[in-house]
């Protein structure tokens, strides 16, 4: 059984006990423990259940690569699924529960799947559940969904209480990995004066070297590591981050690093995760290597672990998976585990070495301690139902005939090591297969390249294939120097450090144990532990023609679990290559993609959440709207008042009241969101002539003109009023939603096409507050507050503008109207906006001045037959469809969209044209309703002859009014046509239709007498 050793554990503090719970059971660990080491120390062997067969599983690894020991962490608001026990540092009161089982971890009903794996081979679901058809949706799929998934979702009724943040940095170097290679790289880079961010994903510097008994310059690695970190901390150009994983490398040296700031010690008011967004000239990936499992029957049983993980747990935490541990290996490194176990007083019954010879320094040292070393041997099977009871040994080159049963309670396996090349590969770095060591390592000739075509990621140490500690430091120094030279920075002349570690003999690739295992055994050799993919599954995929590694991956789900194949990919690839009779490099690898290990969604979103998840734009008058009960609607990043309901009023009531107040008295609209763009320069007029369909260059200073803007494809994209401020200056008004887009559109043309025109544009939308004073009493109100501008019809006629002071405010007044009433749109400096608004309201009380919102604005413009961008237009409508031919210049040679509008379909007389619509019964036509025509088209769809574009109840007219586009509409005045609805007349019946008469779109004041006063 797993246990805590009486002494040892370099990372734990035995004086500090930490109480935590697992599945409600109160357990004790030590400060410095991971959840995995603490559970192991508490005798908890089974920590999770596998995905497909729900097999009981224990911990197998010691880092982010852990596929089995995933738990639900926390409770209520802080609940989080799928936390790796191996990277979870324990703290007082930690609560963990195991996942993917019912009713309990030890007794899981889902385990029946494990009894019939023979009937559930890879891809079985593609071959069955086909009949009867409705059963997939209603029977099979719900069952599969329930048994799949891992952790439990957070409760949707609770909000994540934690904070996440993002930091931005620019640096010369990011060094990923704080093992000895990373530290060596940082020291060299530090001496050169480079700005460095050094990230280590775990809570400790130094990586594996202290566990592996490495000596540097004659002292234990630990001493050198401490000195190195001390030195680095004193260097101002070095920035050290623990618990910070480099998650991804992107084009142009963009790096994401994920720092788990307080997962190990949760506190209120401390940010939980921090995402670093770094622009770095180079990236040094000192990311080490990962050990590979061996594929033998029963290799997934609780108690079977990676040899390095066993060693980590014993040395770092004083926890062991068992008292009698069999080692099985194809290399010398695993012998270190035997030595560590023996040193800790545990029993190693034997080391099973698949190689024909095991005569290196490490095997000799192991033999010298009286441990049996069995060369040329393998494991035929692991006995035990819920954990290892015995290892059955066989010859590696045979079919698995059992030679001996070795009683044991744990097995430490090692299939060799694979460099962690993820960061090299994220941005397109290529790999080469090194046959001698049986691993992929970075191909130095094919690095990921930056904007200049130069490599910008360098692997250092084990990540570069320099696994042996002596080579690791040397390689790290060389790689760093190469990087610094590329960056034109000085390099030191420091000699390589002296590292003493035992020499290692070569490993022998072993992909299947034993080599000639039959189908029954191969169906019990796990490749991907979490997803339950076995050797037999990969071989089945190959047999069925899923020969590409991507096909195999997708067909079997190999490498698609939460560890993303960190343990399984190379073994799976080798088995596939074997099945295809191909070499491993011919089969290739799957693509490595960010993130290296999963990162929280919270960190990706950062601080941008809740009300600030997008920027919020406020007009100078926003505060008044908020204080006065406005009902808001989002318009771009703005929030505009839709209406101002009074107590007891519905939104509809409020809108009707606001409209009547404007039509009969005076209304005030906060129009500050309206786009305002200054276009200035000798060529400004010429430029606007190209942008607008009509002529703007002939506009006189002091005058305004309405204009239409089309896309290159001829479609109407924006409209608005242009005012000429002086000979060279125009003020362009755009729609609220269009301001930024239109400004970008202008710059696009100016910078890409007409770069030699002398025009300058500036978006001054937020520099002004703009208030529309609208209604028959508007002039009276303005005269009351006093103006030094003559506001009379004669001095300031419709479509004129003037500058002066109104009510003591600097102001520009535009005589433009979107409602058909007498209207003054008044712009004042943004800082004066609120005061001006307050003044108008106060002075307007006697005239019944009423603030109104966007909906009243929309209804009034529809009553007047004015089009609205986004309602009458949808990206397929041209000005000619809307009866706006008068706003299209016939004289101009060109404007944007002119050529497009000459294409045959654009000039087609059958195009739908703008009309007004009145229902026969006065009701309001539904939004988006279509005008029905006879018959169906070739595809069986009902024919149509038009559609509703805007539809409202008009309080002015006391009935429903609508605008729409209808085929030959303007020629069919008075005709009655039918519109569809989505509501059936009675249950089961066809949807109702509504009859409407085609009328002029101008419902109100067709002569324009009201706005022209």
């Amino acid at each position, binding site marked *: 059984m797993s246990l805590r050793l009486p002494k040892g554990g370099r990372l734990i503090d035995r004086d500090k006990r930490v109480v935590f719970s697992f599945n409600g059971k109160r357990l004790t660990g030590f400060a410095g423990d991971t959840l995995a080491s603490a559970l192991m120390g508490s005798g908890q062997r089974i920590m999770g259940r596998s995905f497909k067969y729900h097999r009981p599983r224990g911990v197998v690894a010691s880092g982010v690569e852990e596929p089995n020991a995933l738990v639900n962490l926390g409770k209520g608001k802080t609940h989080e699924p799928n936390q790796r026990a191996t990277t979870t540092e324990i703290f007082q009161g930690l609560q963990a529960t195991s996942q993917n089982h019912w009713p309990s971890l030890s007794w899981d009903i889902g385990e029946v799947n494990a009894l019939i794996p023979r009937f559930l081979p890879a891809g079985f679901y593609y071959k069955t559940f086909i009949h009867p058809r409705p059963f997939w949706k209603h029977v099979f799929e719900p069952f599969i969904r329930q048994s799949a998934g891992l952790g439990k979702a957070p409760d949707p009724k609770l909000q994540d209480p934690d904070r996440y943040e993002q930091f931005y940095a620019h640096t010369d170097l990011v060094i990923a990995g704080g093992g000895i290679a990373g530290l060596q790289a940082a020291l060299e880079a530090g001496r050169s004066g480079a700005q460095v961010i050094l990230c280590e994903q775990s809570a400790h510097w130094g990586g594996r070297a202290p566990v592996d008994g490495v000596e540097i310059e004659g002292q234990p690695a630990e001493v050198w590591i401490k000195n190195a970190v001390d030195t680095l901390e004193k260097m101002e150009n070095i920035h050290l981050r623990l618990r910070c994983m480099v998650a991804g490398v992107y084009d142009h040296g963009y790096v994401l690093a994920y720092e788990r700031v307080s997962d190990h010690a949760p506190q209120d008011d401390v940010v939980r995760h921090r995402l670093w967004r770094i622009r770095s000239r180079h990236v040094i990936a000192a990311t080490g290597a990962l050990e590979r499992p061996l594929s033998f029957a029963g290799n997934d049983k609780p108690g079977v672990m990676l040899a390095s993980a066993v060693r980590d747990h014993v040395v770092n935490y004083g926890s062991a998976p068992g008292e009698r541990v069999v080692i099985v290996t194809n290399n010398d490194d695993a012998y270190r585990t035997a030595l560590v176990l023996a040193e800790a007083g545990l029993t190693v019954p034997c080391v099973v070495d698949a190689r024909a010879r095991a005569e290196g320094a490490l095997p000799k040292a192991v033999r010298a301690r009286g441990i049996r070393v069995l060369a040329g041997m393998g494991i035929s099977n692991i006995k035990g139902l819920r954990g290892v009871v015995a290892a059955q040994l066989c010859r590696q080159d045979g079919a698995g005939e059992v030679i001996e049963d070795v009683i044991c309670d744990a097995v430490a396996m090692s299939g060799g090591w694979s460099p962690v090349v993820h960061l090299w590969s994220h941005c397109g770095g290529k790999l080469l297969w090194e046959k001698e060591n049986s691993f992929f390592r970075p191909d130095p000739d094919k690095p990921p390249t930056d904007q200049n075509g130069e490599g910008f990621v360098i692997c250092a140490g084990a990540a570069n294939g320099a696994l042996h500690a002596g080579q690791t430091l040397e390689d790290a120094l060389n790689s760093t120097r190469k990087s610094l030279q590329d960056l034109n920075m000085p390099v030191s002349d420091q000699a390589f450090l002296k590292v003493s570690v035992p020499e290692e003999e070569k490993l022998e690739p072993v992909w299947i144990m034993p080599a000639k295992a039959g189908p029954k055994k191969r169906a019990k050799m796990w490749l991907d532990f979490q997803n339950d993919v076995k050797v037999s599954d990969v071989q089945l995929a190959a047999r069925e023609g*899923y020969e590409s590694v991507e096909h195999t991956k997708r067909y079997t789900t190999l490498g698609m679990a939460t560890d993303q194949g960190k343990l399984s990919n190379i073994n799976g690839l080798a088995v596939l290559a074997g099945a295809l009779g191909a070499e491993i490099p011919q089969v290739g690898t799957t693509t490595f993609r960010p993130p290296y290990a999963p990162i929280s969604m919270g960190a990706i979103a950062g601080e941008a959440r809740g009300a600030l998840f997008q920027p919020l734009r406020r007009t100078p008058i926003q505060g008044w709207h908020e204080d006065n009960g406005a009902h808001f609607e989002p318009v771009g990043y703005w929030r505009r008042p839709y209406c101002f309901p009074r107590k007891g009023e519905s939104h509809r009531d409020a809108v009707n009241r606001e409209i009547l107040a404007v039509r009969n008295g005076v209304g005030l609209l906060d129009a500050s969101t309206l786009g305002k763009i200054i276009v200035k320069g000798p060529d400004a007029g010429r430029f606007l002539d190209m942008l607008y369909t009509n002529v703007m260059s002939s506009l006189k200073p002091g005058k305004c003109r309405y204009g239409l803007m089309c896309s290159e494809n001829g479609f109407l994209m924006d409209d608005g009023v242009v005012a000429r401020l002086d000979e060279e200056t125009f003020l362009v008004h755009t729609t609220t939603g269009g301001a930024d887009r239109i400004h970008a559109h202008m710059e696009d043309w100016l910078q890409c096409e007409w770069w030699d025109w002398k025009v300058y544009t500036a978006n001054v939308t937020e520099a002004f507050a703009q208030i529309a004073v609208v209604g028959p009493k508007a002039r009276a109100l303005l005269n009351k507050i006093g103006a030094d501008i003559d506001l009379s019809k004669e001095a300031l006629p419709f479509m004129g503008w003037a500058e002066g002071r109104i009510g003591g405010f600097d102001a520009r007044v535009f005589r433009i109207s979107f409602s058909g009433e007498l209207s003054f749109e008044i712009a004042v400096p943004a800082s004066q906006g609120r005061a001006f608004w307050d003044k108008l309201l106060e002075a307007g009380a006697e005239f019944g001045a009423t603030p109104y919102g966007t909906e009243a604005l929309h209804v009034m413009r529809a009553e007047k037959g004015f089009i609205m961008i986004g309602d009458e237009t949808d990206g397929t409508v041209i000005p000619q469809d809307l009866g706006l031919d008068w706003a299209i210049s016939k004289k101009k040679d060109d404007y944007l969209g002119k050529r497009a509008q000459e294409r045959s*379909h654009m000039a087609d007389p059958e195009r739908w044209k703008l009309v007004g619509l009145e229902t026969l019964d006065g009701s309001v036509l539904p*939004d988006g309703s279509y005008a029905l025509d006879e018959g169906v088209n070739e595809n069986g769809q009902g024919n149509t002859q038009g559609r509703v574009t805007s539809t409202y109840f008009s309080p002015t007219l006391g009935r429903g009014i609508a605008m729409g586009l209808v085929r030959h509409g303007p020629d069919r005045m008075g005709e009655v046509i039918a519109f569809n609805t989505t509501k059936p007349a009675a249950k089961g019946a066809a949807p109702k239709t509504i009859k409407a008469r085609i009328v002029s779109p101008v419902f109100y004041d067709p002569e324009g007498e009201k706005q022209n006063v």
Partner: protein
Amino acid sequence: MRRYSAFAIARQAFRHHEGWERAWRSPEPKARYDVVIVGAGGHGLATAYYLGKNHGIRNVAVIEKGWLGGGNTGRNTTIIRSNYLQDPSAAIYEKARSLYETLSQDLNYNVMFSPRGVMMLAQTEHEIRGYQRTAHANALQGVATEFISPRRVKELCPIINLDGPRYPVLGALWQPRGGTARHDAVAWGYARACSDIGMDIIQQTEVTGVQREGGQVVGIDTTRGPIACGKLGIVVAGHSGVMAERAGFRLPIESVALQALVSEPIKPVMDVVVMANTVHGYMSQSDKGEMVIGGGADGYNNYTQRGSFHHVEETVRALIETFPIISRLKMLRWWGGIVDMTGDRSPIISKTPVEGVFVNCGWGTGGFKAIPGSGWAMAELMAKGHSPLADAFSLDRFREGRFIDESVAAGVAH
């Protein structure tokens, strides 16, 4: 072809599954085919399949540069819906959706079509009006959709946050028979069926040139030698522009990266597919339990199948607002695909300036859902020279200004 069934699995179980035959053959190319399709993605394979099934044309090869189904067919977020606005779009997507309903039975391969329902949230007044218009259009197009209330939205998707501080949910366009399918299985199922009726699927073979005589296609050059053909179908998505150039004409296509991501798997919490266009993101939960997430396409043209972080960030922000529980989930995997975009964001299924060469491309961000309908229409066009489903999508439309613009209905990649 041996049929797949539970009995077949049981029979094989006792032989340790050593008796399964290949899902598709891996033949040497013949010297000549009546029809060659370039591109063994979903659309190419479906085109071949319906050429055989509907038109009896079986001397067909499908040539693939990499591995079949390895492009956008295997990189999308598997959403199937047909609630489009414009008639031609609704026609072809609804044809596709209805073929998906019975595709598993038709192909004898479980593509796991799951009509779990798709909703598109309305979060502005403008969006409400837009979706009501789509609902009215769909009613005439034979596409079953309805505009539903926020309360119904919450019933269908309990993890949704209706009352976000910025964009409260005001309703949704709901298509109950929309849903998802297993994307790889669609490619594999079609490939197996094509192979079974005698068609050759030739992988790891790049088409390097198109041979023409007097404006008529006569064959292709490949990395495995020349192959003669009577007709040629180019169905290569992101690389359509490159293939068109080899055939001697140009296409109005731009290629951009579209990204998607999945969370780590969790137990089922979400049955339906939800798209939130105002905030730019959509999400569903796969049968494995992963939350499958997508958003907008990158803003610049490229071919690299990887994208920038910024779009993913924007998408995740939007979805945390919409589904707050995902804040405490982790992003597991994140990938990109190259999508081929036309000026009006609608596909091209068309004859080309070269006699005998047909092109099917421009599916942009929404091609997976169209696969069966696209193959059906393309096969009909290639066999008969005319297809009611394809006619509106001809290349001529750009010259005539006859755009099929869906942007009003779909402001987000999908």
